[in-house]
C-alpha cells in the first residue's frame, strides 16, 4: 500500500493483534486509500466487476449442488431439475447465465475505459497485464461453463473451439485429446469442463487480488491522466467511492434484473434448448456474443492455423498495449486524433461481432452482384469481417506510430486545475451540478 499507515490501535487487544497479524491496519488503510477526486462513472466498473465475480461464484456453487455432470443427465438436471423443481432454481440459473453476459459487458467497458484514458501506461503496466490475464481466464471459464447445460450449442461449440487447438503445430492434437479425455467430445470432456470452471473462478479471484494490489501501489489513474501531486487531489476511498460505486452497482443491477426477470433468454440460443446430439449438427454454430469478434477474425482468415494465430494475436496485442502506445499524453481527452481512431476501433469490433453472428457466405446486401471483383464477392460477410479485422489490427500500428505526427491538446498542470476552474463558477458550498462531474 502506498503512503504511511493512518491506523493507530486504540485498545490493548488491538495492539496485541496488530503486532501479530495487522489485519485491522490492512482493512483501515485499504478503506482510506487515497483516490483521485475526479474519477467519473467509467471508474465504477471495478466495483461492478467485483460484484459480478462474487455473484457468479455464489450462483455457480449453488447450481453445482443440483447439477449432474454426465452426458445422459446434464441436460435433464438443468432443464428439468434446476429450472422446474429446485426452489428458485430458475432465478439462480437466470442470474448465472445472464450474469456471464453482464460480467463481459462490464469487463469490456472497464477495458475500454483503461484504453481511452491511457490507464495502462507506466507505472501501471503490471496492473494492465493482470487485468488481461483475468480477461483470458474469464473467456476460458465462460466457454467451459457454457458447455455444461449440454445443449446442442454447448456440445458443438465445445467441438469447434477444442478442434481449433488441434491446429497448433506438433502439440495441438495431444492438447485436444487431453482436453477431450478421449477422441471425441463426450462424457470425459463434460466432466473436465465441470471441474475446471469450478476451479477457474477462484484463480480469477486470486488474480483479482493481485490486480487490486498492483492498483494500490501506484494508485488510480484519472480522467485527466495527470499524476496525483498532493493529498488535496485525493479523497479517502471510503466513504466517497464506496457510495459512488454502490450507486453504480445498483444502477447496473437494474439492467441485470431486467434480463434475469423479463428477458431471461435474450442471450440464449434456441438450439441450446435441444439436448446435445453428436449425430445432428446445428445449421449455424455461433458462440456467445462476447466471443463473436474473435470468432469473426478466426473465420476471416482462410487457413485454420492462420485463423488461430489471428485470434490469438487479437488478444495478445491488447496485452502489449503499454509498450505499443508510447505517447507522453496519457488521456485521450487531450488526444483528438487517437480518440477518433479509438472510436473507429470500437466500431470495427462491433462490426466484427455482427459478422461473427452471421453466416460467412451471407451477402451484406442480398441480391446485389455489383461488388464482384475479380474472383471475389466483396458483398459478403466474410469480406466485411476481413476489412474490419484489418482495421482492428491496424489500430495497434496507428497507436504505435501516432506520437510521430500527433498534435495533442494542452494537458492541465494538475488533475484538480480543470475542476477548480469550473468549480469557481459555482458558489462555495453549493451542490455541484451533477452533469459537470468528472
Amino acid at each position, binding site marked *: 500500500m502506498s503512503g504511511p499507515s493512518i491506523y493507530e490501535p486504540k485498545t490493548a487487544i488491538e495492539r496485541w493483534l496488530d503486532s501479530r497479524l495487522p489485519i485491522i491496519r490492512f482493512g483501515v488503510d485499504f478503506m482510506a486509500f487515497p483516490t483521485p477526486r475526479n474519477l467519473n462513472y467509467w471508474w465504477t466498473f471495478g466495483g461492478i466487476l467485483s460484484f459480478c465475480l462474487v455473484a457468479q461464484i455464489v450462483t455457480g456453487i449453488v447450481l453445482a449442488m443440483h447439477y449432474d455432470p454426465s452426458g445422459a443427465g446434464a441436460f435433464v438436471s438443468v432443464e*428439468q431439475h434446476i429450472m422446474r423443481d429446485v426452489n428458485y432454481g430458475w432465478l439462480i440459473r437466470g442470474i448465472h447465465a445472464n450474469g456471464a453476459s453482464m460480467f463481459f459487458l462490464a469487463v469490456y467497458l472497464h477495458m475500454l475505459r483503461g484504453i481511452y484514458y491511457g490507464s495502462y501506461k507506466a507505472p501501471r503496466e503490471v496492473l494492465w497485464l493482470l487485468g488481461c490475464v483475468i480477461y483470458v481466464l474469464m473467456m476460458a471459464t465462460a466457454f467451459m461453463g457454457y458447455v455444461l447445460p449440454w445443449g446442442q450449442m454447448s456440445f458443438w461449440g465445445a467441438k469447434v473451439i477444442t478442434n481449433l487447438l488441434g491446429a497448433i503445430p506438433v502439440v495441438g492434437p495431444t492438447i485436444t485429446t487431453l482436453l477431450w479425455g478421449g477422441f471425441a467430445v463426450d462424457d470425459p470432456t463434460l466432466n473436465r469442463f465441470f471441474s475446471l470452471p469450478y476451479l477457474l473462478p477462484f484463480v480469477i479471484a486470486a488474480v483479482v487480488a493481485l490486480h487490486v494490489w498492483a492498483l494500490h501501489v501506484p494508485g488510480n489513474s484519472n480522467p485527466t491522466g495527470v499524476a496525483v501531486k498532493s493529498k488535496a487531489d485525493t479523497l479517502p476511498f471510503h466513504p466517497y467511492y464506496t457510495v459512488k460505486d454502490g450507486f453504480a452497482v445498483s444502477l447496473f*443491477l437494474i439492467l441485470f434484473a*431486467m434480463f434475469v426477470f*423479463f428477458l431471461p433468454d435474450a442471450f440464449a440460443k434456441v438450439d441450446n434448448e435441444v439436448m446435445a446430439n453428436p449425430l445432428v449438427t446445428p445449421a449455424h454454430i455461433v458462440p456467445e456474443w462476447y466471443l463473436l469478434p474473435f470468432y469473426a477474425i478466426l473465420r476471416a482468415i482462410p487457413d485454420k492455423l492462420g485463423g488461430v494465430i489471428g485470434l490469438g494475436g487479437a488478444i495478445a496485442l491488447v496485452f502489449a498495449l503499454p509498450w505499443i502506445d508510447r505517447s507522453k499524453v496519457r488521456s485521450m481527452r487531450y488526444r483528438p486524433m487517437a480518440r477518433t481512431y479509438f472510436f473507429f476501433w470500437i466500431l470495427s469490433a462491433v462490426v466484427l461481432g455482427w459478422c461473427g453472428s452471421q453466416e460467412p457466405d451471407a451477402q451484406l446486401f442480398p441480391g446485389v452482384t455489383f461488388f464482384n471483383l475479380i474472383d471475389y464477392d466483396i458483398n459478403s460477410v466474410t469480406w466485411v469481417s476481413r476489412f474490419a479485422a484489418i482495421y482492428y489490427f491496424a489500430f495497434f500500428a496507428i497507436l504505435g506510430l501516432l506520437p510521430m505526427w500527433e498534435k495533442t491538446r494542452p494537458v492541465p498542470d494538475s488533475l484538480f486545475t480543470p475542476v477548480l476552474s469550473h468549480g469557481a463558477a459555482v458558489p462555495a458550498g453549493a451542490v455541484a451540478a451533477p452533469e459537470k462531474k468528472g
Partner: protein
Amino acid sequence: MAFRLTLAAALACGLAMPALAATTQVAPKDVHWSFEGPFGMYDQAQLQRGYKVYREVCSSCHSMNMVAFRNLGDQGGPFWSPKYPNPNENPVVKAIAADYQIPDIDGDTGEAIKRPGTSADYFPNPYPNPTAGKAANGGALPPDMSLLAKAREGGPAYIYSIVTGDDANIPAGLVVPPGKHYDPYIAGDMSPYWKGDPNHVPRGGVIAMPPPLGPGKVQFDDGTPSSLQQEAWDVSAFLEWAADPKMEERKQVGLAAMIFLVLFSGLLWVTYRGVWRDVEH
C-alpha cells in the same frame, strides 16, 4: 452524466447484438399472446384448452418428458387451484394422471407391469424408445414437447405457424416427396424438389408430420368454437407454459425486485450526493 449513461447503454446494446439466422423460411405469423410483455400472464382457460389439444392429438406421437402431472396443478399451470396449494392433492390432476398407464415393476414379483399414473409421475413416452418412434413416423422422431416453444426461433408463434401452415397451397412446380409435407415456416432447402425458375425457389422446408389439427378436431369443454386457428393458438400457448412453467413466478418476483432496486438506487443516489456535498471535484 445522462449523456454518459446513454453512451454506456448504446455501447451495451451494440455489444449485445443478437445473432441473426439466415432466412430460408417464411417468418412466423404475427400472433398475439396473453403472456407477452413484462406483465403478461398465462390465460388459464387457454392453457386448459391447449392441454386438451395436446392430450387428444399431440401426445399420441410427441413425448413431454420433463413435465409431471403435478406440474399441471402448479401455480400458473392449467389446473392450478388456490384450494389445493399442494398440486398432488388436486383432484383434476389426480384424475388426469390416473387416466394414463405408467410402465412400472411389480413390487412383489419384479415383472414389468403397467399401473394407473399418480400425480408424481411424468407424462409417459408414446414410444418405448426413440428407434420405435422413428420407425412409426417414416424415420423422423417427433421432437419432445417439454421445451419445444423455447427450442425454435419464434417460439409459440413458430409452432402456431407450423400447425396452421397450409399444406394444400403447394406452389405449382413443387414436387413434395411421398410421406413428407411442405411447410413454408420450416427451415430447409426446397431446390431439389423445385421444377420452376431456379432463382425463385419457394422458401420453406419439408416436415414428416401431416397437418395435425383441423376444424372440430378437439371439442373444447368451455364451448369455445374449435377452429383450426383456435386449436393451434391454444396448444401453442400450452406448450409455451410447458417450456416456461415458472414465468408467472418470475415476472412477479421481477416486479418486486425492480421496485426495490429503483428505490434502493434512489436512496443510494441521495446518500452519494450527501457524502459528496461539500467536496470540490
